[in-house]
């Protein structure tokens, strides 16, 4: 996550929120939220190196496999549940989205937008895209779910999620016009309707 992306996401989190960051990586976002917005909470992460980085940072981190669910977390126990670049790695992405809405009052999801125009171009040329945002070859990508800005709107609706904010991010800048075409990252803020 670039610094500007981090700040764009952090801007969506209200001051003093209790936050759960699913797939928190090295804990940079949580550390930022703690230091600059007085937030508290936990990160969930599977990778050993990232877990270690979080402990080093002084961020509460729980080494849990998200594909096994969020059963350790009580209903509505967080103000905000973040899934930043996590959804695309999950086998049970839809369940996790519902779980996010169960555990948190607000959910914030960000994932690579597959409909970003360079990806479309690549597909038109007959090849799966390999870009800075999607840097893997089709046969060894950890991104087992690829979706678009518009796809998420459909999934959110199907699961009774009320989208309260949606925009694209490109080079850390908010994209509100044609985000499905112009943004490499899709960002959604939602609540249970």
């Amino acid at each position, binding site marked *: 996550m670039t610094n500007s992306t981090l700040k764009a996401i952090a801007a969506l989190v209200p001051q003093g929120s209790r936050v759960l960051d699913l797939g928190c990586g090295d804990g940079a976002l949580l550390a930022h939220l703690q230091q600059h917005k007085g937030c508290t909470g936990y990160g969930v992460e599977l990778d050993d190196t990232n877990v270690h980085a979080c*402990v080093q940072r002084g961020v*509460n981190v*729980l080494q849990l496999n998200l594909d096994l669910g969020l059963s350790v977390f009580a209903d509505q126990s967080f103000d905000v549940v973040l899934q930043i670049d996590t959804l695309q790695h999950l086998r049970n992405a839809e369940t996790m989205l519902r779980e996010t809405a169960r555990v948190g009052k607000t959910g914030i999801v960000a994932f690579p937008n597959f409909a970003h125009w360079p990806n479309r171009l690549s597909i038109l040329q007959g090849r799966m895209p390999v870009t800075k945002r999607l840097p893997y070859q089709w046969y060894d990508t950890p991104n087992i779910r690829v979706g678009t800005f518009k796809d998420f709107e459909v999934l959110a609706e199907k699961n009774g999620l009320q989208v309260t904010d949606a925009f694209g991010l490109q080079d850390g800048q908010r994209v509100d016009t044609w985000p499905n075409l112009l943004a490499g990252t899709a960002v959604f803020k939602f609540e249970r309707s």
Partner: protein
Amino acid sequence: MSSQPMIATPQAMHFADALVLQSGASVRDYTLAYETYGTLNADKSNAVLVCHALNASHHVAGVYEGQANSEGWWDNMIGPGKPVDTNQFFVIGVNNLGSCFGSTGPMHTDPDTGKVYGADFPVVTVEDWVNAQALLLDRLGIHQLAAVLGGSLGGMQALSWTLQHPERVKHAVVVASAPNLTAENIAFNEVARRAIVTDPDFHGGHFYAHGVVPKRGLRIARMVGHITYLSDDVMNEKFGRELREAVAHNATGYKYSTQDIEFQIESYLRYQGDKFSEYFDANTYLLITRALDYFDPARAFGGDLSAAFARTQAKYLLVSFTTDWRFSPARSREMVQALLDNQRDVSYAEIDAPHGHDAFLLDDARYMNVVRSYFARIGQELSTGVAA
């Protein structure tokens, strides 16, 4: 890291006053054996208490002067430059009441009767141990611990500290532990206890008077225990189905004996059992396994661990190992959940290590690094006076 091993010196603290135990019984005129490493700072804020597991003692780290192979049982974890860095922390190891390693236990004389306690040593619980440790800290002038640290049964004590004396613990590091034992765990303990008490040399626990030791029982108890400390994979990797050489070189490839050692794993278990029966006290083994069985802080709350944890104030690091089937990750996750329910600061590392329960004593870089980083944060808090 220092090249010279740290020299440890055992000490003893005597307590004349009676300590009332959970059972209602009490002990008086008792001694706690302990060791300390590092230096207590001026405001006495850098103390780390290390609680021991079943067959360990106060000798946590360092070596005894002039004694080869006398490293403390957690010497890889504690010492100058080690994850729990004694250049920064004042580490205390204390031997629990009822043990056979220096603190008052069944082998000592009951001041009320003038006779050796033997089987009459009162039943001690994890809570009793913690209360005794608290008295020791009082004497050392330490009101609050920077951290309490323990693995397995030691982890239960660390947990118990945060429940019994919440204001006295800033951080608790609970490794390969559980909020209580499962029925299967109690079953293993019971097999071990039956092996001991049915040994003809046990004499109802008063074997000292007969000049014997129920070694057969202790051996079997240790063998059972040892099996549960390892993972199937590690046992297979270390021993597999390998036969001992004398057997393998037989014409048939087997000895067809039920008495002799044929497989390597048998040899290993018998060796471990023999060694253990030479130094461990049978009554102590019975006492400690009962303390393990009894530990259940949720019991007073109708089994609701979250309710039990409501009074905690500490920050926690929990560590489990994926192949530990005796204190499985699921048991650690129960504690994580109860702490989350109370919005406590908790971090949890689930280390994918092959070694089973014993992993908590071994060098695994991921495990050591997490503990190191956590203690570095505690150290930072101490030096800056700001909570991390």
